[in-house]
């Protein structure tokens, strides 16, 4: 592929990767709030698989996101404008999402190694973590769509 086409691939890889991360978080979040959907061990295995996917795709999402900003070139407005303020909020949301995800991954890793654990407490903690992840992704997606289509 010629490099002049790479920007096109980057734009759509960003959209697809964000959709995979949001959809995956939604699926795992649903597993934690429906008690009979899966046993705790199976739900933890699903969460662990999501964490591997999340960190593999998060890097791709971040670099393609910055690359998309580069494509706007002259269209990048300053932080004092409405568009710039929305970008600041989006990047802040992404940072908060990354920190939340690190805590979520760490909890999944260490919970799998626990000999004794309370199933209902685990459902509360990981259910809340995954639902919060979904909400933050939706906020970032909403802001991203607004930035891409000049809503601000």
């Amino acid at each position, binding site marked *: 592929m010629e490099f002049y086409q790479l920007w096109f691939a*980057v734009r759509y890889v960003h959209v697809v990767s964000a959709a995979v991360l949001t959809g995956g978080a939604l699926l795992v979040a649903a597993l934690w709030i429906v008690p009979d959907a899966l046993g705790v061990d199976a739900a933890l295995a699903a969460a662990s698989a999501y964490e591997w996917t999340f960190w593999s795709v998060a890097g791709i999402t971040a*670099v393609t996101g910055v*690359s998309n900003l580069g494509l706007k070139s002259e269209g990048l407005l300053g932080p004092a404008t409405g568009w710039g303020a929305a970008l600041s909020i989006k990047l802040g949301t992404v940072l908060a999402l990354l920190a939340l995800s690190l805590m979520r991954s760490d909890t999944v890793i260490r919970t799998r190694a626990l000999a004794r654990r309370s199933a*209902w*407490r685990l459902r509360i903690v990981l259910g809340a973590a995954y639902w919060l992840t979904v909400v933050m992704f939706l906020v970032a997606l909403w802001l991203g769509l607004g930035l891409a289509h000049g809503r601000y």
Partner: protein
Amino acid sequence: MRLSSARRSLDLKVWSLSTFHATGFIVIVALGLHLCGTLGDTLRRLDTARGVAAFIILWASTCAATSWGLRYAARPAQSTDAFSFSMAIAGGLNGVAVFAVLLAVFAVRVATASSYPLAAIPVLFLSAVIGSLLAFTIGTMVGLVFGLIDTVVIRMGSALLEWIARTDLGTP
């Protein structure tokens, strides 16, 4: 089987921490440049292929450095040291690794473009010495910041884990 499971957990820990560091770093840099009003000018100098390649190099070197930092922090002799100290040293090594790649690319370009490539050796040597010291210092500071963030996040996770591990009260 148990060893295999522990190994996978360790690998996920390395993978999550290193990707958090690499992606967090570029998002913080992008946010900082945007708040200074220079994001557009900076990105204009990078094309897509170079930007993606630079991130892949950063991601790979951060993964190696974080893996080393976690192993260093897990050594019995280091058990009393702060986790952030290990991440700070790993950050310094990461800075030197990224600088080494940049210098290698520069050296290849000089060697292919110049009629007398050997004449550039003293300049490259001096750049390597000064640049690696600077890269180690900057990398250490960045690593320390991320090490402190990691510590806060992991401690919050530990509090949740203690709550999950309490089975004495049973199901409400």
